[in-house]
């Protein structure tokens, strides 16, 4: 098709469109939805035993707050980087709290290696964790997917990975409020693992289709 014909047909099919709100406003909307979901789940589950006591533990508090901050900043970065005229440097926004969050996971693994006896983490407890994790992260991921569907034509990989990080961090901080087990590794594995799986499959199939 000739370019001038294409222009004519595009102009002929151009109806009015509803402009997107600012990325900051949309990120706030998504975070409010996440907060509402967390509140609902907390009401349903109840806070974990000795929550206030655990919050006095510095490593637990730093872990939870850094996860929450990572989630908030990653959400903002996702909505900004999804637009064509915004810099890719936005991807670095959640980096500082992410480093703190990951280092506290490492510290907890090292610290908890000896005290946890074999059999302390049961299949029942872990599967209950997984169920809560899916219940929290799936609706958040779906809403974000709908809100950012236009980014498929621009920067899909960075947007998907940053969005997955946002969902992981929010879910992890939610789980640590009402779950006795520390499920950070599972949360990260689930969300980022699923994202990497989908990206890998997409890369493979798109190459096959374009061949």
């Amino acid at each position, binding site marked *: 098709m000739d370019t001038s014909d294409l222009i004519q047909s595009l*102009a002929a099919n*151009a109806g009015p469109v509803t*402009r997107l709100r600012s990325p900051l406003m949309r990120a706030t909307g998504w975070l409010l939805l996440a907060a509402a979901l967390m509140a609902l789940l907390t009401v349903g589950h109840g806070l974990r035993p000795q929550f206030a006591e655990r919050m006095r533990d510095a490593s637990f508090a730093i872990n939870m707050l850094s996860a929450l901050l990572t989630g908030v900043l990653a959400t903002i970065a996702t909505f900004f980087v999804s637009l064509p005229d915004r810099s890719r440097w936005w991807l670095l926004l959640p980096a500082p709290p992410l480093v703190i969050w990951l280092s506290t996971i490492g510290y907890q693994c090292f610290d908890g290696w000896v005290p946890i006896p074999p059999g302390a983490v049961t299949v029942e407890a872990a599967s209950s964790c997984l169920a809560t994790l899916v219940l929290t992260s799936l609706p958040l991921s779906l809403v974000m997917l709908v809100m950012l569907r236009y980014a498929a034509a621009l920067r899909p990989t960075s947007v998907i990975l940053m969005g997955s990080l946002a969902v992981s961090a929010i879910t992890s901080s939610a789980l640590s409020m009402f779950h006795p087990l520390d499920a950070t590794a599972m949360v990260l594995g689930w969300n980022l693992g699923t994202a990497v799986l989908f990206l890998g499959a997409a890369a493979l199939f798109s190459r096959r289709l*374009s061949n």
Partner: protein
Amino acid sequence: MSNDKQRRLRLVSSGEERACADANSADRTIGAEATRDIDWTILMARAQDGDTASYLRLLHEITPYLRSLVRLWHKDHWDAEDTVQDILLTLHSIRHTYDPSRPFGPWLVGIANRRAVDRLRRRGRQALREAPLRDEHEGIASPSQDSDSMLDKHHLEEAIGSLPPIQQRAVDLLKLKEMSLKDAAAETGLSIASLKMATHRALKNLRAMLSDRGDS
């Protein structure tokens, strides 16, 4: 809503006009670019509201600019034109993501670079699995490499060599060198009738000799 839009448009215009005024004193080109960006910003804002005439004008105006941008990435004319069309289609599908309070240029260039890089990657993948067509890829081998043809040629030359000299000369001039009867007559000094007769006999003899060989 419309007041807010106008205010935002005025904000962009006043900012760009100030930039334009500064630029005029320093460099006229920058001023022209800033003016063009304001025009495109206004046209895009109107297009988002459903003004098809503005949208048509915008697309016509940005196309040469897009071509010049894309030529930095793609040297091939058709690749460049396909990329321009990709950019126009992407712009159309995500035109709701443009914020009229921000300049139009960076938004357009962001889309253009993305599409140009995508096509470069696709071309790279194609180049990896494609090879240039060479002689050895031809389905039909050249006659000089065909052993059967070589054998036939050898037999024919042998058969022609065993003909009487006049018949040999007639075949050589009329059939192999494809001369006209008149030229061949001038060349040999023989009459046209003699040449015709010699050729006729030569072909008869050759047919007999080659069919004998074929039977044996």
